[in-house]
């Protein structure tokens, strides 16, 4: 046991400590270098994230501009053709966006001096709206070439620029569905007369021909006309203005209950619908309906010979072959309205537009309002019977 090691333990330990210290120094140096790189990297990454969030915020601004444009144009839909209406939406959205972006450019800088929103002023922004699935709106906002978001790091070592020339935005409002539905309603407006005629004829058969007396009643014709209107709404929009219908059916107006007679003047009623749209009768396509039809007068004009001579009796038509007489009466009913009727539909399923209302903001559904030009609606009822009958106006 008289053997000796190569070096004493303490000498080996000292050597290890020296090696460890060298390693620590090396690691610290490389760590410092890596930290510098990491800081640069983090700074670049942070700048890139900031640029992307600003890009997305501008997208959001573009969407808000389309919301406003849709809201404004939708309320005056009947003032445009389909082509000019789309152009008006695009133009208004571009105006709102241009105004907003100019303000935002300075506001971003106030909050973060690294940001520079460089919107080229060679031409105004251009918006193009198109139909997306289920009648929603897609928008492509085009800014002048050269528009970009530029960011500079605090140490001004890193500079980043991302282009902001084309922005795609999805708008969660079914404008195109509303437009198409209203087009269908207007195209088939004649259906109201057909439905009204059918209902008048059924009433005539039921109440008149069996008893020999056909009574032409203005209140009834008014109610039947309004029911025909509601049925046409139901067929086209999947709903009708049933609150208004219910109000009429309850005869609130004729009951003379002053405080209930017109609880919602048309304007305020419309505003209430804008915020609290009635639930659609059918879940598809999910539209709420408002209408304003104020009937001024209902008039009847006999078109058969006896009637034209001012007689209440129907016109007898002898059938020579059988020797019998068929009694014929025909009359035209005209409903005249006080004002142009208003038809308005709301995207009940998407109450998504943050719009200023009174003294606060609320989410409203997009409205599509149409003022019809027709103030007179006519239908003709023809009745035949083998027994004599009379027609009189009550």
């Amino acid at each position, binding site marked *: 046991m008289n053997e000796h090691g190569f070096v004493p333990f*303490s000498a080996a330990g000292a050597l290890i*400590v020296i090696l460890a210290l060298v390693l620590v120094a090396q*690691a610290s140096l490389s760590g410092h270098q890596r930290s510098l790189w990491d800081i640069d990297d983090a700074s670049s990454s942070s700048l890139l994230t900031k640029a992307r969030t600003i890009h*997305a915020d501008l997208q959001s601004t573009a*969407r808000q501009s389309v919301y406003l444009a849709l809201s404004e144009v939708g309320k005056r839909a009947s003032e445009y053709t389909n082509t000019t209406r789309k152009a008006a939406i695009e133009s208004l959205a571009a105006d709102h966006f241009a105004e907003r972006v100019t303000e*935002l450019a300075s506001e971003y800088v106030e909050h973060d001096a690294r940001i520079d929103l460089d919107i080229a002023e060679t031409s105004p922004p251009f918006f193009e709206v198109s139909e997306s699935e289920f009648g929603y709106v897609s928008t492509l906002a085009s800014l002048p070439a050269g528009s970009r978001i530029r960011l500079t790091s605090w140490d001004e070592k890193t500079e980043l620029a991302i282009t902001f020339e084309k922005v795609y935005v999805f708008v969660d409002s079914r404008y195109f569905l509303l437009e198409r539905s209203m087009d269908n309603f207007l195209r088939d407006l004649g259906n109201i007369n057909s439905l009204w005629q059918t209902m008048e004829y059924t009433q005539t058969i039921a109440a008149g021909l069996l008893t020999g007396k056909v009574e032409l009643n203005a209140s009834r014709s008014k109610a039947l006309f309004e029911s025909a209107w509601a049925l046409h709404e139901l067929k086209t929009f999947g709903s009708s203005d049933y609150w208004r219908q219910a109000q009429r059916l309850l005869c609130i107006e004729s009951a003379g209950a002053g405080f209930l007679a017109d609880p919602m003047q048309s304007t305020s009623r419309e505003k209430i619908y804008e915020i609290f749209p009635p639930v659609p009768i059918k879940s598809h396509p999910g539209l709420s309906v408002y209408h304003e039809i104020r009937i001024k007068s209902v008039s009847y004009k006999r078109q058969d010979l006896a009637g034209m001579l001012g007689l209440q009796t129907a016109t007898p038509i002898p059938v020579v072959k059988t020797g019998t007489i068929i009694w014929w009466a025909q009359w035209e009913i005209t409903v005249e309205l006080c004002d142009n009727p208003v038809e308005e539909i709301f995207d009940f399923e998407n109450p998504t537009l943050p719009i200023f209302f009174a003294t606060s903001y609320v989410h409203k559904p997009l409205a599509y309002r149409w003022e019809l030009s027709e103030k007179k609606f006519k239908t003709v009822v023809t009745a035949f019977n083998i027994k004599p009958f009379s027609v009189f106006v009550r």
Partner: protein
Amino acid sequence: MDKGIGQVADILVFALLISIAITALSAVVLVDLRVEVSLYASNLAQSTLLSFQYSTAEQFGGFEYQLGAFGFEANFPLAMESTRRDLRYKTLCQLIEETALLNLRVEVAGVAVPLLRPNMAMEGCLEVLLKRVLDLTVGGKFEYRLLVRTVPVDLGFVQLIFEMEISKLSGTKDQMCSETMALSLPTTEEELMEILRPFKSVPSVAFDPDPIIEVGLELWS
């Protein structure tokens, strides 16, 4: 005997020196690890904020709230349906912007003015949604605090303000990072003045609104 003592002393010195070497090396490793975690947290926070811009509420189970009927509780089914606001296609950032816009509070001399708040439920629903999202994205790794704040009008004695805080913090922790993003409040000077009008606080001269919403996400470990 002396030789034996010398050997023991030699071994003890050796052990001491080895300990010093290990301590020096481990300190370097620990410092490095903390920097790594901090960087990771920072990247995660940035990605999370960025995802708010592009993720829709629908991806996290949807978003809807009930509009208060301006002071009346609408409890019958038809009215409930009419006051329901389904905003599933909006991005999380849009929801933050619109919640702030629809829930601006008026403070006079630092005291909140009681108002009818028809959109109050939206704020609560957003808090629930954002908490769900943060639990999913960062909750498994870090504790967090999300702060949303905007003061679009500050006239000294009267302010229009919105603040929201969502957090999951327990006990004393180390803050790993704090990342912010700026959103804009979709409003105009005229509309802000209309909100102030009932309080007779509309300034006689034009004022410069500041419609930027600051959204900050802190991650703690």
